């Protein structure tokens, strides 16, 4: 085990050198940081209209992306489940999910901005893709873990396929699905505050502009607003899970 620790320290030194971490830079940085923090406080809402509009737009992006993303992930996840679907159906579905997950939302946002122009639409489409990738993958995995015995009995009674799904499959995966969906909704809310940096709408653009103008006290105000918005979002998610009767699990980091 000590070998492992030594290797770790050795690596850290190596990487630190490669990345040009020098003590000087750090000290200068700390000095800067002090000045920086000074300029951030007290926080000031320099452009209330722009900020309100930006926050609202981020919220709307998150809502619409989550709504359509969750809606689309349901059939996508079912189609990707190898215990329910033949290979010629599950394979394309799984590939679609893998593609959706491959790239960071920022990159996807840049591509969508090129495709549909600046603004919220690019942001919404980006996060729909992110949702499909995340929820789709986990949902398909959850379906592949169900007990097929319960499904078998429903099939044996002559139920149509959709009823086999709603009575045999979904009850077994419902609470996990709600968990994934609420996690993704939170994630969408977080990401919606950031895609604006590359032009895909929301408060990110306002934030970026404030940085570039060195209005750090405005930056601070915006950051506080973002944190508050997300905290409220997380509480809402917990509340929704309780209403739907799902185990209020704690892991939504």
């Amino acid at each position, binding site marked *: 085990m000590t070998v492992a620790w030594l290797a*770790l320290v050795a*690596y*850290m030194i190596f*990487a630190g050198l*490669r*990345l*040009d*971490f020098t003590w000087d*830079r*750090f000290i*200068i*940085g700390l000095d*800067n*940081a002090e000045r*920086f923090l000074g300029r951030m406080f007290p926080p000031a809402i320099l452009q209330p209209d722009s900020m309100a509009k930006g926050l*609202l*737009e981020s*919220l*709307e*992006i998150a*809502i*619409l992306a989550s*709504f359509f993303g969750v809606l689309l992930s349901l059939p996508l996840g079912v189609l990707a489940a190898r215990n329910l679907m033949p290979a010629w159906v599950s394979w394309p579905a799984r590939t679609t999910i893998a593609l959706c997950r*491959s*790239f*960071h939302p*920022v*990159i996807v946002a*840049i591509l969508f901005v*090129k*495709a*549909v*122009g600046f*603004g*919220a*639409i690019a942001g*919404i489409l980006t996060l729909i893709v992110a949702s499909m990738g995340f929820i789709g993958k986990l949902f398909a995995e959850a379906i592949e873990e169900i007990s097929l015995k319960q499904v078998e009995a429903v099939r044996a009674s002559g139920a149509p396929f959709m009823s086999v799904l709603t009575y045999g499959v979904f009850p077994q995966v419902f609470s996990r699905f709600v968990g994934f969906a609420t996690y993704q909704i939170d994630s969408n809310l*977080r*990401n919606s505050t*950031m895609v604006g*940096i*590359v032009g895909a*709408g929301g408060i*990110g653009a306002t*934030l*970026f502009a404030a*940085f570039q103008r060195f209005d*750090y006290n405005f*930056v601070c105000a915006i*950051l506080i607003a*973002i*944190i508050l918005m*997300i*905290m409220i979002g*997380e509480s809402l998610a917990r509340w*929704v899970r309780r*209403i*739907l009767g799902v185990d209020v699990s704690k*892991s939504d*980091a």
Partner: protein
Amino acid sequence: MPNSRTSRSPAQWERYSSTARLLRFSLLLLLIIAVLYSAKSVEIIPEFLLDAPEQIRDLLVRMWPISYGFYPEGVHDPLMDTIHIATMGTILSILLAVPVGILSAQNLVRNSLLNGFARLILVSTRSVNSLIWALLFVAIFGPGALAGTLAIAFRSIGFVGKLIGEALEEVDPRSVEALQAAGASWMSVLLKAYWPQLEPTFWSVALFRWDINIRESSVLGLVGAGGIGMALDTALNLFQWTRVSLILLSIFVIVVIAEIIVTQIRKRII
């Protein structure tokens, strides 16, 4: 065959109680209102939407063929930097997150003020995107990998700290009690009773976050925080689309490799 329980005819069966139904219905209503309102106020320019397939086709054409030749001079070094940023950032975040996680665990630290304070730190660091952290640190420390590493580290504190805190709270109290009864110091209890139970979760969380951080680190350069993102930013600004596709491919490759590494290590350890 009618039965004689007339008190039950017609027999009623409801899946949910009236209160539950009311709550579910209001939830649905709220959702629909939120969606409709958002759809209305978001600006949709139909011409752009219709133009989209053409734009995408145009983009794909420009991104082909991939400039493989550019890799050695323009991609390899920043790519390696990205990996280091992710790794150092993860290591740093663990060092910072463990104490905060401990502070947030109600069974370990019984001061609710400290618990609350620790949780606040965890929530806040999570809520700020790593890209935004990067903007912050670039403003303080200047452009480069230092800003990127700190951005990754700070963002991950919330994630790692929360999961570790939860894992600590779920530790079986019996082994803890046994050691405490024997008069062990707080640190000993931590190392000998909590740590063994925490260990598998710890590695699992660390690997999981490292995997995510590889993905995150690759884009920080877009705001100047080092790594492959900076090459991407340059290529995008200069419209060098074939280089863009090379960079995207390299990012994809390291993400896949990272996932493979993580799955392999998981199999061995957990």
